[in-house]
């Protein structure tokens, strides 16, 4: 029983914190948003320089061989800075997908670039109609000669707008297969957008996209996809906590500063208690993030499922509570684009929906028993 980061993890966390403080304050972030494409390759290189892109990649492929707890240490400060660059998508989710598929050739071909940050990877596992169900995509792969042809439509709401390569799940021979598809593959129509939270997202139209045999990653992808989803929840939870903590801090500061009726509004008990609710939620969220990080790879399926479900359901509830109360306590100024809290609100709203909403995870938890 131990709730401390190791010295290495503390160092990692401090490094990212310092990076965010020095290079990614609110003004710097606004400048990135003001330009196309809304995120920065230069920042990405810097993040790679800090080792973040290599975090979960095995050492054999040039990575750091880190764990979800390492990711917890690194992503919490990224969440605090509302970093737009796709660390979660590429370094956490895509890395886990590739590594979990257990395909030596694919790992050798993809992971070094992923680890170095040379290429950005994003999962394209979800689909509009299938909602949060990852097991039975409508997108289909046909065998064609030695290779494959893919047809369908995917969403890539986690970092997809910044991806050089998509990891696309598709149905093949009644099983689930995973393919590495370059963003510029002929037949792949990538509609890049920004999310309402400012992050780069994409929807994909997959129209007879022809791929070589080596594009397929591993055999049946069911386990890898599930594993990546669980690790994704842990990473997203870490990011969420960072965002929540900063939102609580901004709100408490505002309550101390803003004067109405001749006194700081933080002296009104109803507002105090609302801010306390936010603080308590952020503490619960941290417990949830710890739970997910510690258990998302647990070999026991029930333990893993309950932990991931409990964590994401909690993160979702707390994200909504913290975001909504923060806006309410700020009043009008919280609604403005100029003021940081509106950006935290938007990101927290997105986090609530990514990788499964509350009802989805409540059902999964009940199913796990």
């Amino acid at each position, binding site marked *: 029983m131990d709730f401390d980061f190791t010295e290495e993890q503390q160092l990692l966390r401090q490094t990212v914190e310092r990076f965010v403080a020095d290079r990614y304050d609110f003004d710097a972030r606004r400048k990135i948003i003001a330009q196309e494409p809304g995120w920065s390759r230069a920042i990405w290189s810097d993040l790679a320089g800090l080792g973040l892109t290599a975090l979960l990649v095995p050492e054999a492929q040039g990575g750091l061989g880190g764990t979800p707890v390492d990711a917890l240490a690194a992503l919490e400060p990224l969440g605090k800075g509302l970093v737009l660059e796709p660390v979660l998508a590429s370094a956490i989710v895509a890395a886990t997908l590739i590594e979990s598929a257990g395909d030596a050739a694919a790992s050798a071909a993809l992971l070094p670039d992923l680890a170095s940050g040379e290429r950005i990877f994003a999962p394209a596992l979800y689909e509009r109609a299938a909602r949060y169900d990852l097991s039975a995509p409508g997108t289909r792969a046909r065998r064609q000669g030695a290779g494959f042809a893919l047809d369908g439509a995917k969403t890539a709401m986690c970092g997809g707008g910044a991806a050089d390569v998509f990891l696309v799940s598709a149905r093949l021979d009644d099983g689930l297969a995973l393919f590495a598809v370059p963003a510029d593959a002929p037949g792949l129509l990538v509609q890049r957008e920004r*999310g*309402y939270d400012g992050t780069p997202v994409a929807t994909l139209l997959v129209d007879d996209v022809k791929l070589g045999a080596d594009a397929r990653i591993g055999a049946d992808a069911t386990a890898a996809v599930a594993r990546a989803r669980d690790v994704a929840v842990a990473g997203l939870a870490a990011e969420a906590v960072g965002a929540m903590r900063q939102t609580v801090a901004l709100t408490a500061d505002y309550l101390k500063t803003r004067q109405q009726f001749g006194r700081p509004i933080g002296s009104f008990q109803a507002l105090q208690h609302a801010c306390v609710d936010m603080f308590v939620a952020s503490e619960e969220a941290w417990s949830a993030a710890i739970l997910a990080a510690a258990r998302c790879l647990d070999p026991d399926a029930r333990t893993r499922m309950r932990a991931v479900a409990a964590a994401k359901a909690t993160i979702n509830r707390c994200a909504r509570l913290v975001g909504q109360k923060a806006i309410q306590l700020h009043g009008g100024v919280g609604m403005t*684009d100029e003021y940081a809290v509106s950006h935290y609100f938007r990101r927290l709203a997105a986090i609530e929906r990514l990788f499964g909403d509350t009802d989805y995870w409540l059902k999964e938890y009940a199913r796990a028993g």
Partner: protein
Amino acid sequence: MNLSYDDADEAFRGEVRAFVAAALPEATRRKVLGGFELDKHDMQGWQKALHRQGWGAPSWPKAFGGPGWTPVRQFIFDEECAMAGAPRLLPFGLKMVAPVLMAFGSPEQQQRFLPAIMSGEDWWCQGYSEPGSGSDLASLRTRAERRGDVYVVNGQKTWTTMAQYADWMFCLVRTDAAAKPQAGISFLLIDMRSKGVTVRPIRLMDGGCEVNEVFLDDVEVPVSLRVGEENKGWTYAKYLLGHERTNIAGVGLSRRAVADLKELAARETIDGAPALADPLFAARLAEAEIALDILEITNLRVISEDAKGDRRGPGPAASILKLRGTEIGQAISELAMQAMGENAMPFDRDRMVGEVAGNRDDAAAAATPVAAEYLTLRKTTIYGGSNEIQKNIIAQTVLGL
């Protein structure tokens, strides 16, 4: 005790429905129903169309050119317009400055301003809030110094909705700095084309710019444009707060939002079936719709009380309607976000402007209005007296705490 509208009111409803169906431009209707941005032309066009029908000022008494409808008919009118996708009538002229002018304005002011409000010619905005005074309105600092026949106004207003389109602003200013906060305030009407008026838009998190900062630098306002007595402005402002009780709950708008949500939830799927059929989603939707059913009854109770006498001042009833109306509106928008799930992410405000694409294959065009609605509705529990302020009012006036 009878919840049914009488035959005459039902006939009236039919008349309104038929008129709106005929008179509302299709392009405007599609924008409203699609959650797209309306421009001044859309809104003004609808105001003018209503005016031609004699319905330009639904809440006004006949003496001032209104139709003299009962509160029940005003409610029916609002509901039908909302359900049909008509633009919401802007309240700043019709429901805010007009009642003040009727009650406290000079005959000249009434003649000069009321007809142009009703016709849609003059657009008004509200100059109440300032950067330092939100819930604590009486702490406002904008100063008006009398110099002969004019006031010279200096200060800053904020959260001024539609100021970019407005011809006039009604405005609270401090005319006696020495008096107690509420005693030194006057109520001025300011021509937005006056020298020294600068409007700066504020971008909100939904990407829209409907609110503004308004800077007032040595703006000269003729004394004849002061409403009522000098230093009595607080009285007039208070008269206005909570004056409006037929539409404050937004029942019609929420009804349309529920209808939209049900359509959305019939299209979007959960576990391979329409979201509407998911037991949890269905229960959450039922909760919201039930709350709205109950709100409608509460609203009708208030209206029917209003219809009996002229209990027109602010009161706890308005606070209840505001509290629950805004909470329910927000709940519905949350469910729309839930129904879309991840697919609500792609956001491009530009695709909410101009002609409606109506292309559901365009992920951002389909998603943006849903997310924008969720984001923008957060303001409803803040403005018009935050919901915390409404609870303070009820605690004082009803519970005596």
